[in-house]
């Protein structure tokens, strides 16, 4: 029984409605507006789109408003291959980075989970600490290393591994390095959280029955860690697909990720309807992974309500 539940007074409603209304105004309503503007047309005015919904015009205004909505921006999106390539590139970067993150993150999480219990909080803290510092700073730190006369080329030249500086920056390699570096804790932490909870007696039982260690890992540990794998993968994949800062600072100019296209349309071309249409299409692309992530998040709490 929930103590606050039996008499839901005006006080309880105030507690519910304050964050509720904030989120409706600042999270939900903006999406409706983006949807609306994605159905508008660019115009040389302030704000730079039409039609503008005018509440004073009443029902007639409303009818005129709906009559003027257009799918022009979406038609533009599907007609221009640049946008399609942006989407594909974003999906590619998201998928490959998530796979690399999993390959690097799993051994780290596994290593932490198997370390002495007294070390574990310290190791978790060590994984997490760099990520309290600014995202921008961490990406910038890589420019120091990857640039033409940067540390990496300096070391490679001194060791005579390469004869002339390699152009690391402005390449897909740099994007992958930046993304994997930035998102590593988001993979390691959920993996660690599930690995750490695996019942040790299961592993002992397998060992007692003569199962070799690698087989125990494959048949017992790995299947039990799958919820962590799903959480880590979603937590990385979704934001990486919409990433802007990393490809902008580390990537080349020959192909853009979709987050960059949105940014360019908005800030450089000032085409708000197209930028909104890109946002809507991106959201549609990520809707299934986002809903899946929400289910993972809501699980434990909804379970407690029963």
């Amino acid at each position: 029984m929930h103590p606050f539940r039996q008499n839901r007074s005006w006080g309880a409603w105030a507690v519910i409605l304050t964050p509720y209304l904030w989120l409706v105004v600042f999270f939900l309503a903006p999406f409706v507006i983006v949807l609306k503007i994605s159905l508008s047309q660019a115009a040389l005015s302030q704000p730079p789109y039409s039609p503008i919904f005018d509440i004073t015009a009443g029902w007639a205004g409303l009818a005129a408003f709906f009559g003027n909505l257009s799918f022009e921006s979406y038609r533009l999106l599907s007609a221009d291959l640049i946008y399609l390539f942006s989407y594909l590139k974003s999906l590619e970067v998201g998928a490959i980075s998530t796979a690399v993150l999993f390959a690097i993150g799993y051994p780290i999480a596994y290593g932490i989970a198997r370390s002495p219990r007294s070390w574990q909080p310290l190791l978790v803290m060590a994984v997490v600490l760099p990520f309290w510092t600014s995202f921008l700073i961490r990406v910038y730190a890589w420019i120091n290393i990857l640039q033409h006369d940067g540390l990496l080329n300096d070391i490679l030249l001194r060791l005579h591994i390469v004869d002339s500086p390699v152009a690391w920056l402005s390449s897909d390699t740099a994007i992958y390095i930046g993304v994997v570096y930035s998102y590593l804790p988001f993979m390691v932490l959920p993996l660690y959280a599930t690995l750490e909870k695996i019942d040790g007696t299961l592993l002992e039982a397998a060992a007692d029955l003569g199962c070799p260690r690698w087989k125990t890992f494959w048949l017992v540990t790995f299947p039990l860690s799958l919820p962590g794998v799903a959480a880590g993968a979603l937590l990385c994949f979704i934001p990486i697909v919409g990433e802007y800062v990393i490809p902008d600072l580390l990537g080349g100019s020959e192909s853009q990720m979709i987050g960059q296209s949105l940014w360019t349309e908005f800030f450089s071309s000032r085409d708000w309807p197209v930028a909104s249409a890109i946002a809507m299409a991106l959201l549609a692309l990520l809707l299934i992974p986002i809903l899946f992530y929400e289910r993972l998040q809501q699980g434990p709490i909804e379970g407690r309500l029963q």
Partner: protein
Amino acid sequence: MKRGASAFNALSVSIGLAFLYLPIVVLVTYSFNGSRLVTVWGGWSLAWYRELLHDHVILQAAWVSLRVGVVSASAATILGTLAAIVLVRLGDFRGRLLFSGMVYAPLVMPEVITGLSLLLLFVALDVDRGFWTITAAHTTLTMCFVTVIVQSRLIGFDQSLEEAAMDLGCPPFKTFLTITLPLIAPAIAAGWMLAFSLSLDDLVIASFTTGPGATTLPIRIYSEVRLGVKPEINAICTIMIVVVALGAIASSLIAKRGASQRESEALGARSSEFGAMQ
């Protein structure tokens, strides 16, 4: 999980940590480099820090960021804590599913979408963009992180304490103030710290919602960084790293004092949402 780390386990953790810290160490070291060139080591020097002290544009931006951070983190802490109480303690109500959806979605929503949608809201409402629009945007983004942290603490502690107080006739609001609030205080403090650091960190959403006279530090750094590496930027970044690291250590100490080991692990970070998931 059975303990007993093999050499492979130790190696993978060490390499992982080296990968995470190396770039930061490089950046901090270069901030003390006397030479302007990255490849040339010109001896230890505080020149770039001195230069920073005279850079009024950067200092102004830092001041804007600090104010946005403090105001938005405080608002986000209040709203986020309320949302956590709603999700964990207030049971079912009409619209609950929508509510929890709105709470978790911003955690993974790409920043360009959140930023664009908030800007279009402010344009539609015809608000002057600047300090308050960035603050409102950051409050919306960071309150969800606060919710996740506070919620994992609320799930974690013994509810019979609250029930006992209410059975003895303590009104709900007083029960909250005298029983619940002290128990979740460490999580609230950690939530504030996290919200503050996220706000200090944010570039994309701030770029969309900013206006004249409200250039935050990340916006300033970003425009400098696009032009290439500058030693002054290494210096300001080092200062931010030190400030944030101290804050992170402080908040984990606060969390440890009040919480069990499991929770302090979960509180470790901005990735603390995992705590709630388990």
